[in-house]
Protein backbone atom coordinates (compact mmCIF):
# COMPACT_ATOMS: atom_id res chain seq x y z
CA UNK A 1 0.00 0.00 0.00
CA UNK A 2 2.67 2.41 1.12
CA UNK A 3 4.99 1.38 -1.69
CA UNK A 4 2.22 1.82 -4.24
CA UNK A 5 1.54 5.31 -2.90
CA UNK A 6 5.20 6.28 -3.08
CA UNK A 7 5.44 4.86 -6.57
CA UNK A 8 2.36 6.79 -7.64
CA UNK A 9 3.81 10.02 -6.26
CA UNK A 10 7.08 9.31 -8.04
CA UNK A 11 5.33 8.71 -11.35
CA UNK A 12 3.23 11.88 -11.00
CA UNK A 13 6.22 14.07 -10.12
CA UNK A 14 8.34 12.59 -12.85
CA UNK A 15 5.69 13.22 -15.44
CA UNK A 16 5.18 16.77 -14.11
CA UNK A 17 8.92 17.35 -14.39
CA UNK A 18 8.83 15.81 -17.85
CA UNK A 19 6.16 18.26 -18.98
CA UNK A 20 8.16 21.19 -17.63
CA UNK A 21 11.31 19.99 -19.37
CA UNK A 22 9.42 19.52 -22.59
CA UNK A 23 8.06 23.10 -22.35
CA UNK A 24 11.34 24.84 -21.64
CA UNK A 25 14.69 23.33 -20.65
CA UNK A 26 16.07 24.87 -17.50
CA UNK A 27 19.19 26.27 -19.11
CA UNK A 28 17.09 27.91 -21.80
CA UNK A 29 14.67 29.37 -19.23
CA UNK A 30 17.56 30.80 -17.24
CA UNK A 31 19.12 32.25 -20.39
CA UNK A 32 15.85 34.02 -21.24
CA UNK A 33 15.55 35.32 -17.68
CA UNK A 34 19.08 36.65 -17.88
CA UNK A 35 18.41 38.36 -21.22
CA UNK A 36 15.19 39.79 -19.77
CA UNK A 37 16.98 41.15 -16.75
CA UNK A 38 19.75 42.73 -18.81
CA UNK A 39 17.21 44.17 -21.25
CA UNK A 40 15.00 45.65 -18.56
CA UNK A 41 18.03 47.06 -16.78
CA UNK A 42 19.19 48.66 -20.03
CA UNK A 43 15.73 50.16 -20.56
CA UNK A 44 15.83 51.51 -16.99
CA UNK A 45 19.31 53.01 -17.39
CA UNK A 46 18.33 54.58 -20.71
CA UNK A 47 15.19 55.94 -19.08
CA UNK A 48 17.29 57.60 -16.38
CA UNK A 49 19.45 59.28 -19.03
CA UNK A 50 16.41 60.47 -20.97
CA UNK A 51 14.81 61.72 -17.78
CA UNK A 52 17.80 63.95 -17.16
CA UNK A 53 17.78 65.22 -20.74
CA UNK A 54 14.13 66.26 -20.57
CA UNK A 55 14.36 67.72 -17.10
CA UNK A 56 17.36 69.84 -18.04
CA UNK A 57 14.90 71.94 -20.08
CA UNK A 58 17.16 71.80 -23.14
CA UNK A 59 17.27 68.15 -24.20
CA UNK A 60 20.23 67.19 -26.36
CA UNK A 61 18.48 65.83 -29.47
CA UNK A 62 21.14 63.22 -30.46
CA UNK A 63 21.05 61.76 -26.93
CA UNK A 64 17.25 61.60 -27.00
CA UNK A 65 17.28 59.97 -30.45
CA UNK A 66 19.79 57.34 -29.43
CA UNK A 67 17.95 56.60 -26.16
CA UNK A 68 14.60 56.31 -27.91
CA UNK A 69 16.09 53.93 -30.49
CA UNK A 70 17.62 51.77 -27.75
CA UNK A 71 14.31 51.47 -25.90
CA UNK A 72 12.34 50.80 -29.12
CA UNK A 73 14.70 47.98 -30.05
CA UNK A 74 14.58 46.41 -26.58
CA UNK A 75 10.80 46.82 -26.45
CA UNK A 76 10.56 44.81 -29.65
CA UNK A 77 12.67 42.05 -28.11
CA UNK A 78 10.50 42.01 -24.99
CA UNK A 79 7.89 39.85 -26.76
CA UNK A 80 10.18 36.88 -26.21
CA UNK A 81 11.06 37.66 -22.60
CA UNK A 82 8.10 36.11 -20.80
CA UNK A 83 7.52 32.49 -21.86
CA UNK A 84 5.82 30.25 -19.29
CA UNK A 85 8.36 28.70 -16.94
CA UNK A 86 10.49 31.83 -16.45
CA UNK A 87 8.82 33.03 -13.25
CA UNK A 88 10.07 33.09 -9.66
CA UNK A 89 9.72 29.28 -9.48
CA UNK A 90 12.67 29.04 -11.88
CA UNK A 91 15.00 31.56 -10.27
CA UNK A 92 15.53 35.04 -8.92
CA UNK A 93 13.45 37.49 -10.89
CA UNK A 94 11.43 40.68 -10.57
CA UNK A 95 8.69 39.10 -12.70
CA UNK A 96 5.62 38.31 -10.61
CA UNK A 97 3.75 35.01 -11.03
CA UNK A 98 0.69 37.14 -11.90
CA UNK A 99 2.19 37.59 -15.38
CA UNK A 100 1.29 33.98 -16.19
CA UNK A 101 -1.96 34.04 -14.22
CA UNK A 102 -3.30 37.00 -16.21
CA UNK A 103 -1.57 36.32 -19.50
CA UNK A 104 -4.08 38.17 -21.66
CA UNK A 105 -3.89 41.35 -19.62
CA UNK A 106 -0.12 41.16 -19.45
CA UNK A 107 0.22 40.60 -23.20
CA UNK A 108 -2.08 43.58 -23.85
CA UNK A 109 0.01 45.79 -21.59
CA UNK A 110 3.20 44.66 -23.28
CA UNK A 111 1.76 45.63 -26.68
CA UNK A 112 0.74 49.06 -25.35
CA UNK A 113 4.31 49.52 -24.08
CA UNK A 114 5.77 48.48 -27.43
CA UNK A 115 3.52 50.89 -29.31
CA UNK A 116 4.47 53.72 -26.98
CA UNK A 117 8.15 52.92 -27.52
CA UNK A 118 7.68 53.05 -31.30
CA UNK A 119 5.78 56.36 -31.05
CA UNK A 120 8.47 57.88 -28.85
CA UNK A 121 11.20 56.69 -31.19
CA UNK A 122 9.39 58.27 -34.16
CA UNK A 123 8.93 61.57 -32.35
CA UNK A 124 12.58 61.61 -31.25
CA UNK A 125 13.78 60.77 -34.77
CA UNK A 126 11.73 63.68 -36.15
CA UNK A 127 13.82 66.02 -34.00
CA UNK A 128 10.74 67.66 -32.42
CA UNK A 129 11.81 67.61 -28.77
CA UNK A 130 8.47 68.89 -27.47
CA UNK A 131 6.65 66.03 -29.18
CA UNK A 132 9.34 63.61 -28.01
CA UNK A 133 8.85 64.79 -24.43
CA UNK A 134 5.11 64.15 -24.63
CA UNK A 135 5.60 60.66 -26.11
CA UNK A 136 8.28 59.99 -23.49
CA UNK A 137 5.75 60.80 -20.76
CA UNK A 138 3.24 58.39 -22.39
CA UNK A 139 5.91 55.72 -22.50
CA UNK A 140 6.70 56.19 -18.81
CA UNK A 141 3.02 55.73 -18.06
CA UNK A 142 3.01 52.35 -19.79
CA UNK A 143 6.07 51.23 -17.80
CA UNK A 144 4.40 52.23 -14.57
CA UNK A 145 1.01 50.68 -15.25
CA UNK A 146 2.58 47.31 -16.05
CA UNK A 147 5.10 47.39 -13.20
CA UNK A 148 2.35 48.22 -10.71
CA UNK A 149 0.79 44.80 -11.31
CA UNK A 150 3.60 42.62 -12.57
CA UNK A 151 6.96 43.71 -11.20
CA UNK A 152 8.17 42.80 -7.73
CA UNK A 153 11.05 44.41 -5.90
CA UNK A 154 14.26 42.58 -6.57
CA UNK A 155 17.30 43.31 -4.53
CA UNK A 156 20.67 42.51 -6.01
Amino acid at each position, binding site marked *: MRIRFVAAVAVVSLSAAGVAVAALPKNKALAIMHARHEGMEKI*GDTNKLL*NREFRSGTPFAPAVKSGAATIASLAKQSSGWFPAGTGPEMGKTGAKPEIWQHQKDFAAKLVIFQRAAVAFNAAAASGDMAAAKARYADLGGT*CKSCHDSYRSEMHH
Partner: protein
Amino acid sequence: MPRQLSFGDAPLRHRQRVWDLPVRLVHWLLAGLIVFSWWSVHNHHTDWHIWSGIAILTLLIFRLLWGFVGSSTARWTGFIRGPRGVVDYLRGRWYGIGHTPLGALSVIAMFLALAVQVGLGLISEDEDGIFTGPLSALVSIDLSDKARDLHEFWFETVILPLVALHLIAIVVYQIRGRNLTRPMLTGDAAMESRAPPMRPGKWWVALICLAVALGIARWVVAGAPGLPH
Protein backbone atom coordinates in the same frame (compact mmCIF):
# COMPACT_ATOMS: atom_id res chain seq x y z
CA MET B 1 -3.49 84.18 37.63
CA PRO B 2 -3.23 80.46 36.75
CA ARG B 3 -5.24 78.13 38.92
CA GLN B 4 -3.05 76.79 41.74
CA LEU B 5 -3.35 73.14 42.64
CA SER B 6 -1.79 71.53 45.69
CA PHE B 7 -1.79 67.85 46.58
CA GLY B 8 -0.79 67.40 50.21
CA ASP B 9 2.98 67.61 50.50
CA ALA B 10 3.60 67.57 46.77
CA PRO B 11 5.20 70.75 45.41
CA LEU B 12 2.83 73.37 44.13
CA ARG B 13 1.89 72.54 40.56
CA HIS B 14 -0.31 74.37 38.16
CA ARG B 15 -1.41 73.77 34.63
CA GLN B 16 0.43 75.93 32.21
CA ARG B 17 1.19 76.08 28.54
CA VAL B 18 4.34 74.26 27.46
CA TRP B 19 3.86 73.59 23.73
CA ASP B 20 2.41 76.12 21.33
CA LEU B 21 0.11 75.07 18.50
CA PRO B 22 2.80 75.12 15.74
CA VAL B 23 5.06 72.79 17.74
CA ARG B 24 2.20 70.37 18.35
CA LEU B 25 1.00 70.46 14.76
CA VAL B 26 4.50 69.86 13.41
CA HIS B 27 4.96 66.99 15.84
CA TRP B 28 1.77 65.12 14.95
CA LEU B 29 2.00 65.82 11.24
CA LEU B 30 5.56 64.49 11.24
CA ALA B 31 4.47 61.37 13.11
CA GLY B 32 1.65 60.78 10.64
CA LEU B 33 3.76 61.51 7.57
CA ILE B 34 6.58 59.20 8.67
CA VAL B 35 4.09 56.35 8.98
CA PHE B 36 2.47 57.31 5.67
CA SER B 37 5.84 57.50 3.92
CA TRP B 38 6.71 54.02 5.10
CA TRP B 39 3.31 52.62 4.11
CA SER B 40 3.11 54.28 0.70
CA VAL B 41 6.53 53.19 -0.50
CA HIS B 42 5.78 49.58 0.45
CA ASN B 43 2.43 49.64 -1.36
CA HIS B 44 3.31 50.84 -4.84
CA HIS B 45 2.48 54.47 -4.12
CA THR B 46 5.90 55.93 -4.76
CA ASP B 47 4.31 59.14 -6.06
CA TRP B 48 2.50 59.63 -2.74
CA HIS B 49 5.73 58.74 -0.95
CA ILE B 50 7.54 61.56 -2.75
CA TRP B 51 4.81 64.07 -1.88
CA SER B 52 4.90 62.91 1.72
CA GLY B 53 8.63 63.65 1.73
CA ILE B 54 7.98 67.13 0.32
CA ALA B 55 5.48 67.72 3.12
CA ILE B 56 8.08 66.60 5.67
CA LEU B 57 10.61 68.95 4.06
CA THR B 58 8.13 71.81 4.45
CA LEU B 59 7.55 70.96 8.12
CA LEU B 60 11.30 70.75 8.80
CA ILE B 61 11.95 74.15 7.23
CA PHE B 62 9.07 75.64 9.18
CA ARG B 63 10.28 74.07 12.43
CA LEU B 64 13.83 75.24 11.81
CA LEU B 65 12.62 78.84 11.43
CA TRP B 66 10.16 78.60 14.32
CA GLY B 67 13.11 77.46 16.40
CA PHE B 68 14.57 80.95 16.01
CA VAL B 69 11.49 83.17 16.20
CA GLY B 70 8.82 81.03 17.88
CA SER B 71 7.68 80.53 21.46
CA SER B 72 10.37 80.20 24.12
CA THR B 73 9.92 76.40 24.40
CA ALA B 74 10.20 76.03 20.62
CA ARG B 75 13.51 77.88 20.33
CA TRP B 76 16.73 75.99 19.73
CA THR B 77 18.56 78.28 22.13
CA GLY B 78 15.82 77.62 24.67
CA PHE B 79 16.43 73.91 24.98
CA ILE B 80 19.84 72.99 23.61
CA ARG B 81 22.12 72.48 26.60
CA GLY B 82 25.65 71.15 26.87
CA PRO B 83 26.69 67.94 28.64
CA ARG B 84 26.56 69.72 31.99
CA GLY B 85 22.92 70.57 31.45
CA VAL B 86 22.19 66.92 30.76
CA VAL B 87 24.08 65.81 33.89
CA ASP B 88 22.29 68.42 36.00
CA TYR B 89 18.96 67.18 34.65
CA LEU B 90 19.79 63.54 35.42
CA ARG B 91 20.70 64.57 38.99
CA GLY B 92 17.35 66.29 39.36
CA ARG B 93 18.72 69.81 39.17
CA TRP B 94 16.68 71.15 36.29
CA TYR B 95 13.49 73.13 36.72
CA GLY B 96 12.62 74.51 33.31
CA ILE B 97 9.64 73.86 31.09
CA GLY B 98 9.68 72.46 27.58
CA HIS B 99 12.29 70.02 26.34
CA THR B 100 14.54 68.71 29.09
CA PRO B 101 18.28 68.82 28.32
CA LEU B 102 18.11 65.07 27.64
CA GLY B 103 14.96 65.34 25.55
CA ALA B 104 16.61 68.13 23.57
CA LEU B 105 19.27 65.66 22.38
CA SER B 106 16.49 63.45 21.09
CA VAL B 107 14.86 66.40 19.30
CA ILE B 108 18.12 67.35 17.61
CA ALA B 109 18.85 63.75 16.63
CA MET B 110 15.37 63.31 15.17
CA PHE B 111 15.49 66.63 13.31
CA LEU B 112 18.91 65.92 11.79
CA ALA B 113 18.02 62.31 10.95
CA LEU B 114 14.87 63.43 9.15
CA ALA B 115 16.74 66.22 7.34
CA VAL B 116 19.30 63.70 6.04
CA GLN B 117 16.50 61.32 5.07
CA VAL B 118 14.64 64.01 3.12
CA GLY B 119 17.86 65.14 1.45
CA LEU B 120 18.62 61.60 0.30
CA GLY B 121 15.06 61.17 -0.93
CA LEU B 122 15.15 64.39 -2.96
CA ILE B 123 18.10 63.17 -5.06
CA SER B 124 16.93 59.54 -5.30
CA GLU B 125 15.34 57.76 -8.21
CA ASP B 126 13.81 54.30 -8.28
CA GLU B 127 15.54 51.35 -9.89
CA ASP B 128 13.61 51.77 -13.15
CA GLY B 129 13.93 55.54 -13.35
CA ILE B 130 10.14 55.87 -13.33
CA PHE B 131 9.92 57.79 -10.06
CA THR B 132 12.46 60.50 -9.47
CA GLY B 133 13.06 62.81 -6.54
CA PRO B 134 12.67 66.46 -7.59
CA LEU B 135 16.43 67.06 -7.33
CA SER B 136 17.65 63.76 -8.81
CA ALA B 137 18.53 65.43 -12.11
CA LEU B 138 21.06 67.61 -10.25
CA VAL B 139 23.22 64.57 -9.50
CA SER B 140 24.62 61.68 -11.54
CA ILE B 141 22.60 58.51 -12.14
CA ASP B 142 25.13 56.63 -10.05
CA LEU B 143 24.80 58.97 -7.08
CA SER B 144 21.02 58.97 -7.41
CA ASP B 145 20.93 55.17 -7.26
CA LYS B 146 23.29 55.14 -4.27
CA ALA B 147 21.14 57.75 -2.53
CA ARG B 148 18.10 55.48 -2.93
CA ASP B 149 19.86 52.57 -1.25
CA LEU B 150 21.17 54.86 1.49
CA HIS B 151 17.67 56.34 1.94
CA GLU B 152 16.35 52.87 2.75
CA PHE B 153 19.36 52.03 4.92
CA TRP B 154 19.03 55.30 6.85
CA PHE B 155 15.39 54.61 7.60
CA GLU B 156 16.12 51.15 8.96
CA THR B 157 19.24 51.97 10.93
CA VAL B 158 18.63 55.52 12.13
CA ILE B 159 15.02 56.72 11.80
CA LEU B 160 13.36 53.53 13.02
CA PRO B 161 15.61 53.17 16.11
CA LEU B 162 15.07 56.86 16.95
CA VAL B 163 11.30 56.41 16.69
CA ALA B 164 11.57 53.31 18.90
CA LEU B 165 13.69 55.20 21.43
CA HIS B 166 11.15 58.03 21.40
CA LEU B 167 8.26 55.64 22.11
CA ILE B 168 10.23 53.77 24.80
CA ALA B 169 11.05 57.08 26.52
CA ILE B 170 7.36 57.97 26.57
CA VAL B 171 6.54 54.64 28.23
CA VAL B 172 9.39 55.01 30.75
CA TYR B 173 8.23 58.52 31.72
CA GLN B 174 4.66 57.22 31.98
CA ILE B 175 5.80 54.48 34.38
CA ARG B 176 7.62 57.12 36.42
CA GLY B 177 4.40 59.10 36.68
CA ARG B 178 4.85 61.59 33.89
CA ASN B 179 2.48 61.71 30.92
CA LEU B 180 4.24 63.27 27.94
CA THR B 181 1.55 62.57 25.37
CA ARG B 182 -1.24 64.68 26.83
CA PRO B 183 0.80 67.93 26.86
CA MET B 184 1.78 67.29 23.22
CA LEU B 185 -1.96 67.02 22.45
CA THR B 186 -3.39 69.83 24.59
CA GLY B 187 -0.32 72.02 24.94
CA ASP B 188 -0.67 72.17 28.72
CA ALA B 189 1.17 70.36 31.49
CA ALA B 190 1.08 70.52 35.28
CA MET B 191 4.37 72.13 36.23
CA GLU B 192 6.01 73.11 39.46
CA SER B 193 5.32 76.74 40.08
CA ARG B 194 8.99 77.75 40.07
CA ALA B 195 9.21 76.97 36.36
CA PRO B 196 9.26 80.19 34.33
CA PRO B 197 6.24 80.44 32.02
CA MET B 198 6.44 79.95 28.25
CA ARG B 199 6.72 83.15 26.23
CA PRO B 200 4.35 82.52 23.32
CA GLY B 201 5.37 83.33 19.76
CA LYS B 202 3.26 85.50 17.47
CA TRP B 203 0.75 83.86 15.14
CA TRP B 204 1.69 86.11 12.24
CA VAL B 205 5.35 85.19 12.66
CA ALA B 206 4.29 81.55 12.38
CA LEU B 207 2.45 82.39 9.17
CA ILE B 208 5.56 84.06 7.73
CA CYS B 209 7.63 80.97 8.63
CA LEU B 210 5.02 78.78 6.92
CA ALA B 211 5.01 80.96 3.80
CA VAL B 212 8.81 80.80 3.58
CA ALA B 213 8.76 77.02 4.11
CA LEU B 214 6.12 76.55 1.40
CA GLY B 215 8.05 78.82 -0.96
CA ILE B 216 11.28 76.87 -0.54
CA ALA B 217 9.45 73.53 -0.88
CA ARG B 218 7.83 74.74 -4.09
CA TRP B 219 11.20 75.75 -5.48
CA VAL B 220 12.57 72.29 -4.61
CA VAL B 221 9.58 70.58 -6.28
CA ALA B 222 10.33 72.61 -9.41
CA GLY B 223 13.81 71.03 -9.43
CA ALA B 224 15.57 73.97 -7.78
CA PRO B 225 15.69 76.25 -10.85
CA GLY B 226 18.72 78.49 -10.79
CA LEU B 227 21.02 75.79 -9.52
CA PRO B 228 23.39 74.36 -12.17
CA HIS B 229 22.21 71.08 -13.71
